[in-house]
């Protein structure tokens, strides 16, 4: 029997598979399809200081082996998450990964402080958000902004702080180094790639926000590459994501350098994908005599 347990920043995960923030709501819906305790952890919808309504529809467009989305961080706000959702999630034997987003450094600080006192296991800080004080440029695209926002947040963090990187950068290792220098306990990547589709009949962008985030299997090779690069650049645990579909994809992401992984978009195609992928992972490990999933992390020979 393969040992799937992973220790991620001091948090014991029963297996390396978590769900990607924003694709899994707060777990209720997929909980109708499988037991949420099957998962190593649940990444919840990105939270903001107060309720956010999100963008108008359409918020999704299909692309070859992927999707674009522009949900715009619709969420009930961190307080209602803490009050209403944590008790539900705690009924399951799985780690809770709270995902926080902000539009100023102060917002991030406040969120991290607040969520640190709530009953969650890990804090994931999404820095792909536009910095309203910097002309809307995403925090995660400039090393200086990364340092600033991560070090501010880290000072308030009483739980392990995962910094989630944007892939829309020239050099992901530079950003990873900045985040780790500023105190990130772990990194997660990749968030979505910026993309666009146009409805040729109406000649209008499909998404209400014109451009949106690309995710799904299409981005898997980009995600594997970035995890590989980041693994070689810094020394903190990595939560790898971007297009993971199967148990084999999990193995590949682990080999590239991830310590744990998250699955998102593929759930829309198959709500049982996490259960199947875990079975495949275990069967693959047994067939290959891999005793612990930890042996796989970063084990690519290159």
């Amino acid at each position, binding site marked *: 029997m393969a040992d799937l347990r992973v220790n991620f920043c001091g948090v014991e995960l029963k297996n390396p598979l978590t769900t990607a923030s*924003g694709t899994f709501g707060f777990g209720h819906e997929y909980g109708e399809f499988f037991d949420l305790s099957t998962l190593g952890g649940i990444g919840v919808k990105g939270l903001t200081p107060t309720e956010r309504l999100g963008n108008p*529809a*359409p918020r999704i467009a299909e692309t070859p082996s*992927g999707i674009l*989305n522009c949900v715009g961080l619709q969420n009930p706000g961190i307080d209602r998450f803490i009050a209403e959702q944590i008790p539900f999630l705690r009924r399951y034997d799985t780690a809770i990964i709270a995902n926080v987003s902000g539009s100023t450094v102060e917002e991030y600080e406040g969120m991290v402080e607040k969520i640190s006192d709530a009953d969650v296991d890990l804090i994931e800080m999404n820095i792909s958000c536009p910095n309203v004080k910097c002309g809307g440029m995403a925090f995660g695209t400039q090393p200086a902004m990364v340092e600033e926002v991560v070090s501010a947040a880290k000072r308030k963090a009483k739980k392990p702080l995962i910094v989630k990187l944007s892939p829309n950068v020239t050099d992901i290792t530079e950003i990873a180094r900045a985040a780790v220098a500023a105190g990130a306990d772990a990194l997660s990547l990749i968030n979505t790639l910026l993309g666009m589709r146009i409805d040729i009949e109406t000649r209008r962008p499909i998404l209400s926000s014109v451009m949106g985030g690309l995710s799904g299997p299409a981005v898997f090779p980009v995600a594997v590459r970035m995890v590989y690069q980041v693994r070689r650049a810094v020394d903190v645990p990595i939560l790898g994501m971007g297009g993971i579909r199967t148990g084999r994809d999990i193995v590949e992401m682990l080999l590239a350098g991830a310590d744990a992984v998250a699955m998102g978009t593929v759930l829309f195609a*198959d709500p049982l994908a996490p259960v199947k992928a875990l079975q495949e992972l275990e069967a693959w490990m047994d067939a290959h005599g891999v005793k612990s999933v930890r042996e796989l992390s970063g084990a690519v020979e290159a």
Partner: protein
Amino acid sequence: MSIQENCRVVANTRLGEGLYALTMHAPAICAQAQCGQFVHIACGEGNLLRRPISICGWQGDALRVVFQTKGEGTKWLAARQAGDVLDVLGPLGHGFGVAALGAKPVLIGGGIGVPPMLQTAKAAKDAGAQPRAVLGFRNRGAVILEADFQAVCETFVTTDDGSYARHGFVTDVLKELLAGATGVAACGPKPMLKAIAALAEDAGLPCQVSMEERMGCGIGACLVCACALKAENGETRYGHVCKDGPVFDAKEVAW
């Protein structure tokens, strides 16, 4: 409770230019289905996302959907044959509440919005009401399910160009039926729904509308299928077509 079911295709019949009626063996979904709900169908390896299609009706274990080909997904579906197996999620969403529509509901379908109204008509009738149906189509070639409706209730058909039945819009008929009506339910293009909602509101009748939006998960987790609703504070909030809908109270919708 949503279910993932592998459903064998029983028949896939061409109803007209780009129009198909597909019946599948779906015991678990049929056992729970309600009128106005939908199913989310995986449409081939080339398409990552499932396609939402309204439930047109069911009989025993046989679930029927009626659809129009639009892009790759529905074209793939049109090519399915008896014996093929479909990966289906369902039944999904909130359907029509026939009880709230009273004893004399008017049920309106426009174009490819017609199918879900059939089971709704049956449900209303089974509940003891006297439904009437109004079905609007672009032209003669687009007419579907007329006989099916007539077998259930009094049915009025219109075509935009007058090439079949009454020349005009469903709203023309609705205006004439409002007097005796106790409620209105509709599915079809948004401008049609908006016009119907306005007529029902003027007449003081309850009105339920089935909305459409592009979907991801289909079950309420990804929040992409936003439908603008009126918030209590007068502002807009977003409901979700797949879970809060597809059927909404017309008064709630921010048109």
